[in-house]
């Protein structure tokens, strides 16, 4: 962590899941309530580990924070129609995977403004859908799919049971085989003793 005179110029090092580090301004980072609660008062020596998220996601999140540093104080969510061109580009250039990663990271970092915009965007996506469409869109398994899944699970369980039974059977056989040498030993001992007895009696 570097600490120049002005607090707005303070740069923090962020560490991603890949172990890479990059700089984020203090002003941008302070939009994260998680950061404020965890590090602001106690300070951070060395990079701040946000290692649950990859570099691309964290950079995207802090790109948003850097951009909104100079925006007026957050006072509830903006309507998506009121988003600036920059905001729209920011959201539109993300694919779905990145969008989900950004929501998760923003939620963890507790960046109110970004999380709210993302959530409103999802709500808009679901607007006007009926139950069946909603099921398709949010990829919940339907009753039929659940039934099919349950059947597969049952088959798997039955197969696993069979394997376990076979294993138990094999183990039982092995035990019988292991017992053989003992019996053979007893028999051999018995034979030896008989031979000894016979040789004694011959003498």
């Amino acid at each position, binding site marked *: 962590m570097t600490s120049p005179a002005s607090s707005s110029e303070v740069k923090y090092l962020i560490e991603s899941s890949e172990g890479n580090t990059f700089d984020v301004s203090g002003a941008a980072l302070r939009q994260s309530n998680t950061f404020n609660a965890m590090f602001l008062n106690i300070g951070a020596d060395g990079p701040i580990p946000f290692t649950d998220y990859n570099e691309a996601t964290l950079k995207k999140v802090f790109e948003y924070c850097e951009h909104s540093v100079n925006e007026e104080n957050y006072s509830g*969510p903006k309507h998506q129609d009121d988003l600036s061109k920059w905001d729209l580009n920011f959201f539109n250039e993300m694919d*779905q995977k990145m969008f*989900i990663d950004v*929501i*998760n990271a923003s*939620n963890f970092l507790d960046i109110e403004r970004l*999380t*709210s915009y993302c*959530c*409103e965007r*999802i*709500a*808009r*996506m*679901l*607007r006007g*859908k*009926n*139950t*069946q*469409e*909603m*099921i*398709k*869109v*949010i*990829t*919940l398994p*339907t*009753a039929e799919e659940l039934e099919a899944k349950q059947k597969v699970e049952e088959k798997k369980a039955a197969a696993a049971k069979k394997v376990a039974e076979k294993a138990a059977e094999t183990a039982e056989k092995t035990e019988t085989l292991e017992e053989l040498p003992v019996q053979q030993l007893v028999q051999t001992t018995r034979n030896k003793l008989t031979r000894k007895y016979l040789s004694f009696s011959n003498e």
Partner: protein
Amino acid sequence: MQPIFPLFRLPENVIVHVLQYMDPKQLLIISLVSTKSKNLVTSLGLRARNVYIYISREISLPVAIEGYIFALKFYDDSNIQNELLSVDITLPVDALLLFVNEAIKSSTPFNFSDWLDHIKSVFCYAKPPNIKFYRGCERFEIQSLKEAIGNVDFLHVDSEVTDVYNKEVLKHFNAPNKLYLGRNPFDETCEIQLHSLSKTSK
């Protein structure tokens, strides 16, 4: 092609945040998707101010929630020739959104009672509902209605409801907090009694 978005794989607080951007009608639709979605919508704590049940030849269910009103309609089979064809309300039925005539389906089959219970639980409505009977309500069997609706807060029977049905309504929904009768179904009996009284006095 529908875009797919794995909403229910997001953290619950994020899902709740998304739900906060939806109006009660959308919330009702999403609450029908699964038990999890129903629980999440219920957790928003939206409270219905009033639940009315209007029974004519169809059943309407207007629900008022924090300045927003939507109404569901059931058994709107206006194309069927026989208007008084009786209806079995214990069978599964789809709901129609009143005014827009958009069908709302539950993911598992719902009968009228299930719909009512679902709305009451999702929108935290614990009071007995209000019920109004109008002309044409005779196609609904009163015992089944009583079983589906239970006790009522306000009972209204319109003047165009037949006396026989009116009496049945009063027999089954016998303890409302408020009662309005469009006309007295016992008028005839009163007249007969008055007539016989006057005869005996002569």
